[in-house]
C-alpha cells in the first residue's frame, strides 16, 4: 500500500505545474553569486576605514611636527597661545573625521552583525528537538533582523554580481537563458579531465551497450587533445545545460546515450526536466530511450510535463514516450 501511495504522489507531483516564478529563481541565483564573492567583504570594510586611519596618523604627525619644536625652543606664553592652539585643535578633531565614512564610530570597524551571529536565522543541521524549538521561538525577532541586514548587504553586492551573472547566462544561452528553468551558467566541466575522473566514479558499473550507443564519426578525430574520462557524464551535463554544440561533439564519439547518473537520470531525462528542447531533439535523434525512468520512476515525459514544455512533450510522444 505504502509504495503505491508514494508512487501516486510522485506521479501527481510530476504533473503539477506549480513552481516558483522566474523572478525568484533569478534573485536567488544572483544573490548566491554575490555571496560567493563574499571574501571581498572584509576587504571592503578595511578599505573604507583606511582613509580614517591614515588621516588620524597624518594628523598626529602634523601635531607632533608643530608641538615638538616648541618643546625644544620655548617661546613667550602669549605668542604660543596665538599660534600653537589652531595647529593643535584640528588634528584632534577635523582631519580624522574628514576621511571617515558617515556613521563611523568607535565600534564601526567591527564586522557586520550578520557575520557574527547568522546561526539565528539558519539552524545547525542536527539541533536537538528542544534546542530547535527554542531557536524557532527567538528566530522571528533576531533571526530576521540579522538575516535582512545581511541580505541587504548581499543585495548591494548583487547589483554588481547580477550584471556579470546575467551576461554569463546570456553567453551560455543567447535565446533567453533566464526564461529556461535549467539554463545555468556553469563551468565547462566536460573540458576538464580532472572533473571527468570524478564523473566516472558516479556511473553505475555493469552498463551494457544498447542500441543507444552512438558515435564513431570520423569527426571524432577533431576532439580536444584530452577527451573527458567519462563521456556519458559529459553528455548528461551538456544535455542538462543545453550546450548543444558540446552535445553534438560528444554524440559524434562512442557514448552510451542512456547512461544514467547516480540518481538513475539519463541525459534525456535531465534535458527534459530542464526544458532543453534542442538537447531533447538531438538525443532522440541519436536513439535515446524516451521511456528511461529515474530511480523515482520519473520518465522524460513526466519531467517535460512538470516543466510545462509542450514542444518537448510532443517530441517525446512522437518518439514513443508513454
Amino acid at each position, binding site marked *: *500500500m505504502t509504495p503505491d*501511495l508514494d508512487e*501516486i*504522489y510522485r506521479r*501527481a*507531483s510530476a*504533473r*503539477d505545474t*506549480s513552481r*516558483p516564478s522566474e523572478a*525568484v*529563481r533569478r534573485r*536567488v*541565483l544572483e*544573490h*548566491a*553569486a554575490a*555571496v*560567493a564573492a*563574499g*571574501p571581498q567583504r572584509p576587504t571592503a570594510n578595511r578599505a573604507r576605514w583606511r582613509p580614517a586611519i591614515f588621516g588620524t596618523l597624518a594628523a598626529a604627525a602634523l601635531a607632533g611636527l608643530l608641538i615638538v619644536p616648541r618643546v625644544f625652543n620655548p617661546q613667550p606664553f602669549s605668542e604660543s597661545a596665538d599660534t600653537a592652539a589652531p595647529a593643535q585643535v584640528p588634528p584632534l578633531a577635523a582631519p580624522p573625521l574628514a576621511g571617515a565614512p558617515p556613521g563611523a564610530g568607535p565600534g564601526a570597524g567591527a564586522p557586520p552583525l550578520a557575520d557574527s551571529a*547568522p*546561526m539565528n*536565522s*539558519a*539552524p*545547525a*543541521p*542536527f539541533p*536537538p*528537538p*528542544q534546542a*530547535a524549538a527554542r531557536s*524557532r521561538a527567538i*528566530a*522571528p525577532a533576531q*533571526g*530576521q533582523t540579522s*538575516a535582512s541586514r545581511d*541580505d541587504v548587504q*548581499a543585495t548591494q553586492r548583487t547589483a554588481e554580481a547580477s550584471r556579470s*551573472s546575467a551576461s554569463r547566462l546570456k553567453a551560455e544561452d543567447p535565446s533567453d537563458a533566464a526564461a529556461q*528553468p535549467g539554463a*545555468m*551558467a*556553469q*563551468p*565547462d*566541466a566536460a573540458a*576538464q579531465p*580532472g*572533473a571527468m575522473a*570524478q564523473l566516472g566514479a*558516479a556511473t553505475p558499473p555493469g552498463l551494457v551497450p544498447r542500441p543507444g550507443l552512438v558515435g564513431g564519426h570520423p569527426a571524432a578525430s577533431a576532439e580536444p587533445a584530452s577527451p573527458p574520462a567519462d563521456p556519458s*557524464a559529459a553528455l*548528461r*551535463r551538456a544535455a542538462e545545460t543545453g550546450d548543444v554544440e558540446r552535445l553534438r561533439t560528444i554524440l559524434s564519439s562512442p557514448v552510451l546515450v542512456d547512461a544514467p*547518473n547516480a540518481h538513475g537520470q539519463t541525459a534525456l531525462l535531465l534535458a527534459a526536466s*530542464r526544458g532543453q528542447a534542442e538537447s531533447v531533439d538531438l538525443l532522440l535523434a541519436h536513439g535515446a530511450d524516451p521511456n528511461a525512468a529515474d530511480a523515482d520512476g520519473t520518465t522524460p515525459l513526466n519531467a517535460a510535463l*512538470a516543466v510545462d514544455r509542450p514542444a518537448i512533450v510532443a517530441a517525446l510522444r512522437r518518439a514513443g514516450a508513454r
Partner: protein
Amino acid sequence: MPDAGDSTVADDSDEALIGRYARGDAAAFELLYHRHELRVWRYLQRNLRDAATAEELMQEVWFAVARDARRYLPSARFTTWLFTIAHNRMIDSIRAHRRHLSLESLGLDSDAAIDQLSADPGTGPVAAAVARDEAAALIRAVEELPREQREAFLLQVEGDLDIEEIARITGSSFETTKSRLRYARTKLRQMLKEYA
C-alpha cells in the same frame, strides 16, 4: 574562489556541491538550486497553500542557504539542513501571519491530540469532489491534511527524510512523528479508495 581544476560536476553529491559553493563556486549553488527547487517549493506551497507567501519564503530559504553555506556541517545530509531551514522559515511565517493561533496549543504531543486534529472539521472529507483525476485529488488531499501531519508527510516525500530526521526538524518525539505519518498515510489511502 574555486581551486583551479576543481570544477563543479552535475554528478556531485549535494554535500560536495554545498562545499564547493562555500569555497566560492557559484555554479555549484546553481546545480543545487535546480536539483532541489521543486521539492522545496512543493513543501512550502502545499503546506501554506498560498503561492505568494511560498514564493517569499522560497527566496528566504535559499538566501539563507547561500549565506550560511560555510557553516554547513558535512556530517549532516544537505537535504536535512535545507528542509530544516525551510520548515523553520515556514513556522516563523505562520507565527507572523496567524498570531491569533497558539501553535503551542497544537503541539500534539500525544496520539489523543492527533486524533483530535484528525477530526478537525476544517480538513473535511477528502471526497475530492472537485478533483478531476486521482493525482489532483491526492495533491488536494495532502493540502487538506492537518498541519502537523501534512508537514511530516511532505518532509518525508519531498525531503526524503526518515522519521528521526523529521522528528528533529519539527521538534517532536519519534513516536509522535511516526503517528502523524501513519495518520496522514491512512487518510490519504482512504481518500484514494473512495476516489477509486
